[in-house]
C-alpha cells in the first residue's frame, strides 16, 4: 500500500500549486497514472478519500485519474503499440522484448478551483 504515501505527496503538490496560484479551495484534481507505474488506481482513489478530510484545501475536491499506456517499439518489425501490461512481447510479430517508452509516470496534471481574488 505505497499508494498512501504517494497520495500524500500528490496532495502536497496540489497544495503548493494552489498556494502559488492563489486558489483558496481546489474543486477538481486531475492525475495521470502510467500503466507501468506500479500503482493501483483504486488504492490511490481510496487513499485520497481518506486523506482529503485532513486538509481544508482539498476537503471538497474530486479526483479524476486517467490511466496512460506506455509505447512499445518492436526492434524486429518496427511495430509501435500501446503497452498496458508488463508484457514486452510484440503484438504483431511476437518478438520479445520490445523497447518501451513512457507509461511509468504518476503525476498531477491539473487542478481547478476558486481564486482568492474572486
Amino acid at each position, binding site marked *: 500500500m505505497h499508494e498512501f504515501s504517494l497520495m500524500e505527496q500528490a496532495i502536497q503538490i496540489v497544495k503548493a*500549486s494552489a498556494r502559488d496560484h492563489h486558489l483558496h479551495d481546489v474543486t477538481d484534481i486531475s492525475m495521470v497514472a502510467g500503466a507501468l*507505474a506500479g500503482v493501483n488506481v483504486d488504492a490511490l482513489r481510496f487513499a485520497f478519500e481518506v486523506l482529503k478530510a485532513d486538509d481544508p484545501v482539498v476537503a471538497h475536491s474530486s479526483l479524476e485519474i486517467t490511466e496512460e499506456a506506455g509505447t512499445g517499439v518492436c526492434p524486429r518489425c518496427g511495430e509501435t503499440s500501446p503497452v498496458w501490461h*508488463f508484457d514486452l512481447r510484440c503484438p504483431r510479430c511476437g518478438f520479445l*522484448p520490445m523497447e518501451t517508452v513512457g507509461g511509468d509516470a504518476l503525476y498531477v496534471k*491539473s487542478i*481547478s*478551483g476558486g481564486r482568492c481574488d474572486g
Partner: protein
Amino acid sequence: MAEILVMKAVNAENEAFARRVRERLAEAGVLMINLMSGPGAGKTTLLEKTLGRLGDRYRFAAIEGDLFTDRDARRLERFHIPVIQLNTQGSCHLTAQMIEAAIEKMPLAGLDFLLVENVGNLVCPSSFNLGEQRRVTLLSISEGSDKIAKYPKAFRTADCLVVTKLDLLPATDFSLAEVAADFRVVNAHSPILALSAKTGEGMTQWYQMLKTWKAEEDARPRVA
C-alpha cells in the same frame, strides 16, 4: 474558477533526494546496490556470504531496511563493517530521503560498496528510486516460479535477477525455465543468476558480477 496546469510527478521529491544520493555516491566512488525481494528470500544471507568472501578485498557498508527490529543489522555487524538499521515503523518501503539521512552518518569516502537491503516486499519498494546505481531482485525457489508474472514491476526494473535457495530445487516443482521466460517478458536485457548461499553453488557468478559492476563504476568519469 481557474484551471491550473501542474504537470508535476508525484515522486518528484523522492527523485530529488535520489539525485543527491547518487551525486554523493559518485563523488565518493561508492557503488550502491538496492536489494529487493519478498520477505525471506535470503537477502541477508546473501549479504553475509558476500561479506565473508569479498570483505578482505573490498570495503563494504550496509543499510538494513525493516519495519521493526535490528536483527538484520546485528547479523551483519559481525563482519565489522558500518551498518545502519532503518526502521520504517510499518511503512512498506525505503525512500531516498531515508538513505540520504543514513549516508550522512557513514564514512562514504573509504567505501567500495554500499549494500542496501530494502524492506521485504515485492510490490512497493520498486516504485522508489533510492539513488542506487544497481538494483537486484531476488526470488527464492520456495516462493514458486509464478512470481515474476504476478509481481512484474519489481522484476522489470532489476539490473539482475538472482534466484536463491537453489539447493531446494529438487524438493519443489519450481521451473527455472519458466522463470527465465517470464523474466524476459518484463525485462529486456538483465542477466539471471541462480545460486545457493547455503551450498555455495552459483556464488562465483554473483561475486564476479559484483566485481564487474564495481569496475564499471570505477571506469565512469567522476564528477569534479
